[in-house]
């Protein structure tokens, strides 16, 4: 029997002070803690690492402070296309989805691909349809949008129009 442990990340970047207020930083840390606790609760109850990582990622997808789910970056066409995957170290089973636009929690769709299909990776509309057929909640694409991502896209497009996109900072590109 092993002692359980869990780790999470919410992306790396410049963390420029002017991008977020202190209140935003505090909420970011609170959401990280909530994600950890979601996974830890499963692990300490004797649950699987697979369930724990899925639960932790769902919390982060639902937070506006991270680039996944609600809060995700926008494409050049001002829509969201989301990717996710999950892997079970015990069996090497894995599932993933890419460029999905409607599944509220892409990590749950990835898990469904792993558990309920013969595939490893499904893409686009077919992945959305597969997840929907498995009863996973769907949302309008605008659900994923936050004001900060709208501003970030406008800023980068303005740079492109001025011909200065090569000077865009890491924060502008990735948040």
């Amino acid at each position, binding site marked *: 029997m092993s002692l*359980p442990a869990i780790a999470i990340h919410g992306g790396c970047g410049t963390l420029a002070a002017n991008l977020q207020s202190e209140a935003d930083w505090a909420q*970011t*840390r609170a959401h990280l803690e909530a994600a950890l606790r979601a996974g830890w609760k499963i692990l300490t109850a004797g649950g699987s690492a697979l369930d724990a990582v899925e639960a*932790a*990622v769902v919390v982060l997808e639902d937070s506006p402070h991270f680039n996944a789910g609600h809060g995700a970056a926008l494409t*050049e066409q001002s829509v969201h296309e989301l990717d996710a995957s999950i892997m079970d*170290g015990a069996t*090497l089973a894995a599932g993933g989805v890419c460029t999905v636009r409607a599944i509220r929690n892409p990590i749950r769709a990835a898990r469904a691909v792993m558990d309920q299909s013969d595939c490893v990776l499904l893409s686009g509309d077919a992945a959305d349809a597969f997840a929907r057929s498995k009863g996973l909640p769907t949302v309008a694409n605008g659900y994923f949008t936050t004001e900060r991502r709208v501003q970030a896209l406008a800023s980068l497009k303005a740079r492109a129009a001025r011909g200065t996109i090569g000077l865009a900072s890491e924060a502008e590109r990735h948040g």
Partner: protein
Amino acid sequence: TVGAVALDRQGDLAAATSTGGFNNKPAGRVGDTPIVGAGTYARNGVCAVSCTGQGEVFMRRVAAYDVAARMSYGGQTLRQATDTLVFDVMSGHKIGAGLIAIDAFGQVCAPFNTLGMARGWIGTDGVLNVATHKD
């Protein structure tokens, strides 16, 4: 990008990653996150890994699997393998990169070569840690 790795009481490892990609990305672009071995990998007895950064480089380097290979083939520790990937390989490409990883003993590593990475862990000691900046 967000991700999680875990070790459970049965000794099983798992990894998960989810992302919106990057600002103004081309329609249809797929990064490393959903690619097994690139952005996400788990193998019992070795490690579980979830990556964040410029996806194309992680895909070319098969980054998450690279950590596992360094450990299982090269005999490196989790820290040696993750530090080599982030600080030697990725930094050598001038790529902003980070990852979280956990080994079969529950040791956690969370290296990154950017100014910060939102991260947290509860180790085998049961203590919760959350951080955003380098310190």
